[in-house]
């Protein structure tokens, strides 16, 4: 072999131009940033995350502090988004509500993802009886209408934030399991899986180190797209009083309360409603963008 200059080795394309070599991740980030709408969504999500994280420093009032004299005030200089029926600052309650919504979205999807990826990988890799058992369980879970199922679980577990996490996790693990099962079934036949076994790797190693990283991009997309669903379901649960309990602030619960005042003070329900719409929309746009960016078939 002819001696090759160390730095330029193989980095030049046939036309003599330097071929930029980027990793998968760097490439995906670049593709993600090419879409302006996705950047906007990402900025919105970053702001929401900051609001949730730093709620005590950002919110102008204590979200629980009642000032009955100021109840049901419209938006104004003192209370930017007005006050509720107990005189609590709506803006502060929405900021604190972001904590609930985001954490419900994230934690429930992480629970769902852990259960789903584990069971899906086992079903897809081993097949046979394990697959039958897990697939049938998956179908049973998926056969229930989502909200009714969530209500049933909440009824058994009782209301509360932690139970909302669990209920929503149990609700959506089947999405992850189905996806990972299919992917693993396909990937386990790949020669690099065999190559790992030939190198002395165990089945667990093949799955964890070789198969799951190949499913990673689809899992990430599913998490991002699963969060808005979970936020909506949490809002629905809180709306019917099974979710977050007063006096904690949750967007769904705020809408539920606002309903009583909708005829003479409609503004009360608009603010938390908008918060839900913006958050869900941002997650959906970001998830779609992420899916496009991580899809190797769209790679140029």
């Amino acid at each position, binding site marked *: 072999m002819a001696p*090759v200059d160390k730095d330029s080795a193989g980095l030049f394309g046939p036309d003599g131009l330097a071929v930029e070599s980027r990793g998968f991740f760097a490439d995906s980030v670049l593709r993600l940033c090419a879409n302006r709408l996705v950047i906007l969504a990402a900025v919105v999500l970053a702001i929401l995350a900051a609001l949730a994280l730093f709620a005590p420093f950002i919110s102008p009032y204590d979200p629980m502090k009642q000032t009955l004299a100021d109840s049901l005030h419209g938006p104004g200089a003192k209370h930017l988004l007005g006050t509720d029926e107990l005189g609590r600052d709506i803006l502060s309650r929405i900021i604190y509500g972001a904590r609930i919504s985001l954490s419900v979205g994230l934690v429930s999807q992480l629970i769902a993802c852990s259960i789903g990826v584990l069971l899906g990988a086992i079903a897809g890799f081993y097949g046979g009886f394990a697959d039958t058992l897990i697939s049938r369980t998956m179908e049973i879970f998926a056969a229930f209408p989502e909200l009714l199922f969530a209500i049933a679980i909440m009824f058994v577990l009782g209301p509360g934030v932690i139970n909302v996490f669990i209920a929503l996790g149990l609700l959506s693990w089947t999405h992850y399991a189905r996806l990972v099962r299919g992917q693993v079934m396909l990937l386990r036949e790949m020669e690099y899986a065999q190559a790992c076994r030939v190198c002395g*790797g165990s089945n667990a190693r093949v799955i964890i180190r070789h198969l799951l990283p190949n499913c990673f991009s689809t899992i990430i997309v599913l998490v991002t797209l699963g969060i808005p669903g979970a936020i909506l379901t949490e809002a629905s649960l809180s709306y019917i009083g099974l979710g977050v309990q007063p006096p904690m602030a949750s967007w769904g619960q705020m809408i539920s309360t606002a309903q009583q005042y909708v005829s003479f003070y409609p503004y009360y329900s608009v603010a938390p409603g908008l918060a839900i719409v913006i958050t869900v929309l941002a997650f959906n746009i970001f998830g779609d963008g992420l899916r496009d960016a991580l899809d190797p078939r769209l790679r140029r």
Partner: protein
Amino acid sequence: MGDSGTVVLSVKNLQTSFPSRNGKARAVDGVSFDVGRGETLGIVGESGCGKSVTALSIIRLVGEPGRVEGGEILYGGRDLLELPLGEMRRIRGNKIAMIFQEPMTSLNPVLTVGAQISEALRLHEGLGKREAMARTREMLAMVNFPAPEKRAKEYPHQLSGGMRQRVMIAMALCCTPDVLICDEPTTALDVTIQAQIISLIEEQKSRTGAAVLMITHDLGLISEMADRVIVMYAGKIVEEGTKMNVLTNPLHPYTEGLLNAVPRIDRDSGTLDVIPGMVPNLACLPEGCAFRPRCSRASEACLMSPPRFETLGSDSSFHGVNCWLAESAS
């Protein structure tokens, strides 16, 4: 049998079969051979004659629902077929390594080349991340990778086919195995790269003294690399001997047919010779000799019963054949 050094791996009467709708398909049926240290044993035959299944049987990775049903695979005084799975894993990639045909799909697209080579090192030699990476860079340099530090951080899609096959070789050799199984290592590569890969394997063989099992249908590769040759047909060894004996004086009509099918630069024939017909269905082999329906010199005797393995020649010029013709001639 081994004519160079001590026997490292000895396969005795290996039987591997797959259940099929028409009954059991015996993909490997009574195959026996030895490979010695520093020796290259070529296994040739058409697609579907049991070469690759033999290789996978040795490392006990025959895919479901296939099963090794009998025989012995002796390595280091132990029968690999009897070992518990954990011990078998310690041998795979460490003592017995394998290079695949398809370098395009044998590397994981989401892991860097360096991570994949160091995996075996970390598994078998208990090296830490940094030590393994250092050894990986050494290995990459050894398989003539330019700029190994840089290339170790690259992903498979950034490398050409020849480069990826070098990575596979580095992966296979990083634990200095005693036995290296090459399953059609050059089939997917173009000719100039083939030559480089062959000389690389030769170089590494002489460096480590590994026994090489070269599975191929490329007789040119066999004449280049092998010391001894086994010709397989329908799961059985039909001819075996030193490279000279088998390639210059083939005794089995199948070997002859394979050799005639190779294009020759010194012969001006318009069309290439082919062996008529196809490899038979392994679940329902023809009666008598399995090659009979395709054999131009088949006789009554071939229909009666399968031929026995006849050995001719002494140890140093060993030659054996599984054919009634040879039997009647002797």
